């Protein structure tokens, strides 16, 4: 009120010294009015409530279908949706989604009981299995498994469940009556996929990382064969020079098995863009029909079909169907021609990329990042889960054409994360479609391999592949810290030295970087849910943080573990020489790597020469240049490792 009265007086009364200033009364009044009006407007603006902060970006909840199972009568599809944590039930006839069943976090594998009454879904980040009653269409039971359960099969008597645990590289054997795990069977590293033979006598397990081996030797994998009667491993079929084995399919007569796999060329410099270059895609065949193990190529001389993932064999064994996740396609193989080729070629021919023309009968374009498949009981239709489209392609197996596409009802808006994910998982940007980011970063993790990347010089700077979890705040990138940020890491360098082909647009690069930065940590199974450390972990933490050696001498700052490996991601983002350089390295100075989830990213050091965390210090730290550890007892070193596993 007072302000209003003064305002009125200002507007109406004469200025105290207007005559002396030379401003006329009229002009002054006009000026005063304008001033007041202006002031009022400002006050009015100031009085407005503060605008709301821009709303947090709502991440779209895509479905990301990864596996498909089909009911025994062929009428229902059960689609495991990885990113929406659910199983969607689809009427196979109408193509309508009839039900969504919530399960655990990041569901990954599925198995249906022989009578179709129960569906078993592994929840990779919950470490559980959801058991769904297919009549009630709800979860009726949840069982515990090992860490990161992936593939699952039920034995023929429906008494025992077998679950491949990716992080512990073994297979859990679970008694369904008690719900208890009775044993663990050693499988390949990163064991992920299981297939039951038609007669129920054997289970075949495959794995995504090569088995531990000697530094800079050919990677080796296996197909682990489990005998269901004794519930023991009875055979390991060796897969030479293979790293990354995905699904196995078996013929109904049990005489033919196929395993989808990658063959990396990581021991030679990544320089030659032809003749296999970085990766080739192939199958291992086994069984009576082929005698021993036979590897056959899937690629063509000038075109690759990246990331073979799921396989199915027609009931009459006439065809093999294979999704190639990086190439948006399904490959169809004529079995008779395949067997004829195998029997006529007496020497290994997996590197002969002209061979596939003898037996590949079709390449069918489907949606993005096709993963799991299921054949209808009559073999007439193949259902393909297009993980990054939220759709199911329905293929007529007689015509090898897509007859329809089922929309699973995912968000229609494709946001930056999704666009980036699509870029990450496609091989389209590489010359001849050879490989994409996910070839080396399988499921956004690692490949367990070391590479000789060409830009450093042939035979120089051998580098270990690294995890991509939660990278924001760990810049710079590359083992020598040469790439200051993610756009540099993923941009022109990748195009020039990896893909050697089509470059990303600026928008695409932005999307890709957005996706990579958004990759979250996997749950760390060494850390208790309460966050409390075990006594051994506590002791290890004390060692990690110590500033004096055992004889009381101060440890220089730059040689204290917690100095370099500091901050929320255990890197101070600096470059340092810790004495781990090799004669083949151009410089021994390396970027301090983050240690988050280090337990899951063996091998270690910049070149992967340390096969285990222990070897970082027992083998590669003779002069205490990578922390002071030579005064530790073996118990203390074990404690340190226990602590590191919790990071």
């Amino acid at each position, binding site marked *: 009120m007072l302000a209003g009265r003064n305002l009125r007086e200002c507007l109406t009364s004469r200025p105290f010294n207007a005559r002396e200033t030379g401003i006329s009364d009229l002009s002054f009044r006009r000026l005063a009015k304008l001033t007041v009006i202006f002031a009022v407007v400002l006050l009015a603006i100031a009085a407005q409530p503060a605008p709301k902060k821009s709303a947090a970006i709502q991440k779209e909840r895509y479905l990301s279908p990864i596996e498909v199972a089909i009911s025994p009568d062929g009428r229902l599809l059960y689609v495991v949706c990885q990113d929406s944590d659910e199983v969607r039930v689809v009427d196979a006839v109408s193509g309508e989604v009839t039900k969504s069943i919530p399960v655990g976090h990041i569901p990954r594998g599925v198995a249906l009981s022989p009578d179709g009454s129960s569906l078993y879904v592994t929840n990779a980040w919950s470490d559980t299995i959801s058991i769904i009653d297919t009549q009630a269409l709800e979860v009726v039971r949840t069982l515990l498994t090992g860490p990161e359960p992936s593939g699952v099969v039920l034995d023929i008597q429906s008494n025992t469940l077998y679950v491949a645990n990716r992080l*512990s590289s*073994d297979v859990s054997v679970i008694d369904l009556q008690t719900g208890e795990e009775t044993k663990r069977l050693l499988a390949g590293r990163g064991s992920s996929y299981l297939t039951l033979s038609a007669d129920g006598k054997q289970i075949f397990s495959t794995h995504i990382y090569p088995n531990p081996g000697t530094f800079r030797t050919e990677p080796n994998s296996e197909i682990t064969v489990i005998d269901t009667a004794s519930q023991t491993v009875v055979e390991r079929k060796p897969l030479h020079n293979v790293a990354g084995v995905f699904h196995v399919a078996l013929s109904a007569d049990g005489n033919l098995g196929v395993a989808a796999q990658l063959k990396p060329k990581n021991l030679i410099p990544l320089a030659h863009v032809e003749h296999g270059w970085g990766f080739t895609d192939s199958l291992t065949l086994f069984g009576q029909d082929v005698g021993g193990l036979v590897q056959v190529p899937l690629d063509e001389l000038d075109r690759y079909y990246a990331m073979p993932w799921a396989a199915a064999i027609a009931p009459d064994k006439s065809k093999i169907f294979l999704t190639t996740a990086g190439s948006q396609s399904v490959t169809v193989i004529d079995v008779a021609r395949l067997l004829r080729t195998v029997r006529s070629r007496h020497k290994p021919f997996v590197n002969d990329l002209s061979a596939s023309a003898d037996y590949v009968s079709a390449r069918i374009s489907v949606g993005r990042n096709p993963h799991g498949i299921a054949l209808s009981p009559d073999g007439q239709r193949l259902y393909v889960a297009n993980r990054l489209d939220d759709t199911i392609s329905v293929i007529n197996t007689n015509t090898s054409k897509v007859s329809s596409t089922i929309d699973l009802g995912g968000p229609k808006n494709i946001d930056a994360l999704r666009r980036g994910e699509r870029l990450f998982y496609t091989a389209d940007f590489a010359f001849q479609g050879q490989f994409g980011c996910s070839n080396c970063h399988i499921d956004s993790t690692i490949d367990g391999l070391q590479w000789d990347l060409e830009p450093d010089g042939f035979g120089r700077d051998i580098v270990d592949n690294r995890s991509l979890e939660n990278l924001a705040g760990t810049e710079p990138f590359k083992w020598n810290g040469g790439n200051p940020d993610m756009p540099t890491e993923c941009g022109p360098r990748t195009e020039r030295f990896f893909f050697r082909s089509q470059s990303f647009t600026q928008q695409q690069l932005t999307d890709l970087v957005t996706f990579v930065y958004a990759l979250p940590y996997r749950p760390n199974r060494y850390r208790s849910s309460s966050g409390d450390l075990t006594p051994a972990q506590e002791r290890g933490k004390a060692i990690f943080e110590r500033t004096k050696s055992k004889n009381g001498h101060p440890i220089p700052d730059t040689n204290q573990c917690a100095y370099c490996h500091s901050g929320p991601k255990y890197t101070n983002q600096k470059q340092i020489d810790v004495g781990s350089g090799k004669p083949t390295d151009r410089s021994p100075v390396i970027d301090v790597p983050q240690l988050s989830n280090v337990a899951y990213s063996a091998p270690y050091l910049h070149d992967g020469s340390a096969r*285990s965390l222990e070897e970082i210090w027992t083998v590669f730290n003779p002069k205490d240049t990578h922390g002071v550890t030579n005064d530790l007892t*073996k118990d203390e070193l074990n404690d340190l490792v226990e602590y590191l596993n919790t990071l």
Partner: protein
Amino acid sequence: MKTKPRNGPHPEQSRFSGGAKDLVSPAMKLILALAVLTLASLAPAQDMPMFRWENFTTTNGLPDNHVFCVLVDGKRIWAGTDNGLGLYENGAWKVFRPADGLAHQAVLSLALDPHTGDVWAGTMGGLSRMSAGRIDTFTQLNSGLSNDIVYGVGVQGDFVWTATAAGASRLNTRTGQWSLFNERNTPMYEIWTYAVSPAEDKVYYAVWGGGVLEYDQKTERWKDYNDPDGETEMVVMKDQGLIHEITTSVSYVEKILWVATYFGASRYDGRYWHNFLSKDSGLPSNFLNQIKAIDANRAWFSTDKGLAYYDGTNWAVYRPALDTHKPEMFVRDATGEVKKIPVQSAPAHNYILGVSFQGDDIWVATAKGLSHGIRQKDSLAIAKVFSTEKSKGKK
């Protein structure tokens, strides 16, 4: 059983009276009498196992004649030797050495995981796991194993226990966690652990020069057992405790602990000790490399002078004779009476390092080969051997 001359017809004769006796000639009577005498002399031995021994050496495909340990795995036989791990299956040997991924060619101990079928091998250079043809090796450099010299290994549930030259280690096969046990966290005062026997609710360690250590699975506590005579070779307080500190092997079955030492053996039932010495038992020697119990009363003793079996009362020893190297077997009863049993075969050597059972058969690791003792159950086979030689206290 001896017959005495009597007045009047012999009781046995009456059995043959009435026609039958007229059919029995004097010669037949003599043979029958001898048979009866032989059977009588063999009375204690009839309860003691008899074997026909088949021996394997490098000529048969065994990787090396110096066999440290043997493990029966169903129909498969694993032999840990000085130069490789042998697997005998379907009548043929397959050999694994470091080139195949084995930690070291000298394989000191073997253990079977009955749940998974995996075989664990303790070697001079680390611990190896054999699983359906794949070998994974753990060393003190690449894992949490305390020391590469793995003298003993045992499996119980998810845990693999090792006895190493620098204490005990335990691997949790589900989590990959290693736990170490040594003088810092157990009563162990000597860290040279030589053997381990995990069974039931306890885990026992033979600590060479340090007695026996017991780990209680429920309480997770350690307890030690030592020689009350201290570190001497005197046995002043017999049956008052462990016979000697230099222990080489432990076997825990039916809540009975059996201990082998270089100076005798001990049996402990949780309250009472009973010690065995060669001077007052059927042990052919006090120098024992291994002891393996069958149950609370019966055990096999691997000594430097033969393989011994104890059934709770009687003893039997199997070996090539120390002087002539000819097969010999003798039995000792509770009174101390020793009888020599004629046999046609014997283990490959008298220096016995270990045994493993395959049903009623026994496999024996010796310094000069691997022996398969095939159990003989035919009583006629026993009767065929003849010897009435009896020597009291003579071995």
